[in-house]
């Protein structure tokens, strides 16, 4: 078993066959397709980099990129703040703390589809519980049609995603809190540092890499956002809440412009590659 022999290859063969067929080949094909005008049926024509040029002047695509960025920039800090408070609340010793950890994590477990379904009911204009409460308290004087305007639908989707994903970042931060050595706190309090001083001077600097990592993960997730908008706003009104992945999806499978869809996917991949570079940088920071 020590020497390289061909029977050993049988162990990796299933992985290689599947990965090459459904990843390597499609990846190369994607580069190739992006250089073609490639409809579902009929002639494919080689058009060079025209799909890429077109993407950079396509107002709808640029708008979808901007909207995706806007979404990422709103949801990431929102989610982080909630997760941070949660992590502090469950980084305590009292009986039943595990129950709260489970409750905060539960929305992470269920699908985006189920969450979007539930929240659409909460946001329902006439019968939704949110409007009932807001009307009763007197914050609004007539029911809000949350999903009709980007001004309200974007924050509403962000709130749903925060509810759904905060438990995830919470666990990352909790892990970081707990990895700080008890002795550091002990010696700090002997030196007369208050709890608040300890938090800002010791805890925060030590968990900074995890904070960075959880933010980068959240940004990468937001750049890939599709389901939440497809289900909750259908990209509307008039494509105003269409994310990049959503627009690519619609171009490729609604209008069957495969070449153009592949080209835009390539652009998205470059954006993701830059973000992943940041992720690695942060993770390296973390292990050092």
């Amino acid at each position, binding site marked *: 078993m020590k020497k390289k022999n061909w029977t050993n290859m049988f162990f990796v063969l299933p992985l290689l066959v599947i990965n090459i067929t459904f990843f390597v080949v499609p990846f190369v094909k994607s580069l190739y397709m992006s250089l073609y005008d490639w409809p579902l049926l009929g002639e494919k024509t080689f058009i060079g980099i025209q799909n890429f040029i077109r993407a950079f002047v396509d107002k709808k695509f640029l708008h979808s990129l901007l909207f995706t960025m806007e979404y990422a920039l709103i949801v990431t800090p929102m989610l982080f703040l909630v997760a941070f408070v949660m992590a502090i609340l469950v980084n305590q010793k009292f009986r039943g703390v595990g129950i*709260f950890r489970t409750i905060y994590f539960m929305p992470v477990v269920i699908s985006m*589809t189920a969450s979007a379904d539930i929240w659409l009911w909460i946001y329902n204009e006439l*019968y939704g519980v949110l409007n009932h409460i807001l009307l009763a308290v007197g914050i609004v004087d007539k029911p809000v049609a949350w999903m009709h305007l980007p001004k309200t639908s974007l924050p509403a989707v962000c709130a749903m995603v925060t509810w759904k994903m905060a438990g*995830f970042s919470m666990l990352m931060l909790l892990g970081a809190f707990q990895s700080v050595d008890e002795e550091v706190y002990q010696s700090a309090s002997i030196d007369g540092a208050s709890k608040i001083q300890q938090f800002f001077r010791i805890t925060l600097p030590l968990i900074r890499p995890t904070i960075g990592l959880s933010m980068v993960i959240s940004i990468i997730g937001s750049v890939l956002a599709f389901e939440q908008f497809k289900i909750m706003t259908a990209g509307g009104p008039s494509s105003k809440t269409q994310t990049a992945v959503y627009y690519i999806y619609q171009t490729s499978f609604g209008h069957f412009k495969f070449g153009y869809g592949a080209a835009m996917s390539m652009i998205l991949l470059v954006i993701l590659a830059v973000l992943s570079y940041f992720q690695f940088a942060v993770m390296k920071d973390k292990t050092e």
Partner: protein
Amino acid sequence: MNKERSKVIIIVLNILLGMLWIMPIYWAVVTSVKTQKELYGGISLIPHVVTPENYVSLFQYKDGIFFFYLKNSFQICVLTMLLVTVVSVLAGFAFSKLKIWGVKIWTAMILFTIMVPAQALMVPLYNTLSDLNLLGTVWGMVLIYVTFQTPFCVLMMKSSFDMVPNALREAALMDGASSLAIFWNIYCPLALPGAITVIVYAAYNTWNDYTIGLTFGGSSMKTFNVGLVDMLSADTTVNWGTLTSGAIVGMLPILILFLLLQKHFVKGMMSGAVK
């Protein structure tokens, strides 16, 4: 004294936030068992009458099409879980304990796959599935899920096998055991916790998926989530009792799995995202 007080404050804040966090799920459960009259007649936290009628109407919808969706989802999910586990246990073992040809290339390939999300390859994947006549088939879907789940699972299994000392194998070899017997009798049982994490990871990602199902399932392999969204966004005659009962049915299997295997679940998801 001061310490006691801050502890009470922490617990009270937890209870408040916990209630807020559980509320949407609770609200969906309550809505799904209310009568239509109560559903649209204001806010009641506890239903006056508990009725199964919404669940009945969900499964009667379009002659029981949700049975078909559920069957598809279960079939795809179980096959994906099996295949992901087999592929990643075998490859993880080879990466950890065997000398294989081209190991650097394969490792780079796996890492690269982890970095590229399926969302960015939908067009060529559609094309590949179409060439292989796999669009709208159970195997077409399963193979896509397997492709994008195995890379992480292989790494997970590799680190599981790494923890088993090599001395075990050498001792068994001395006793004249074959390499297959060593793999099966010695390593597999020891790598079981890793394998459970892999299984749970596959179940979570497959059951909860929407995008891949939507793009490659067509109508012949429509999954539960895709069917639910169809009903949710295209059919205005369906009431919210039925729509929320759909969400409950969709989340129940995975929530049960989570409550049973919490540790594995969390481990799979956290290391899956951080990679």
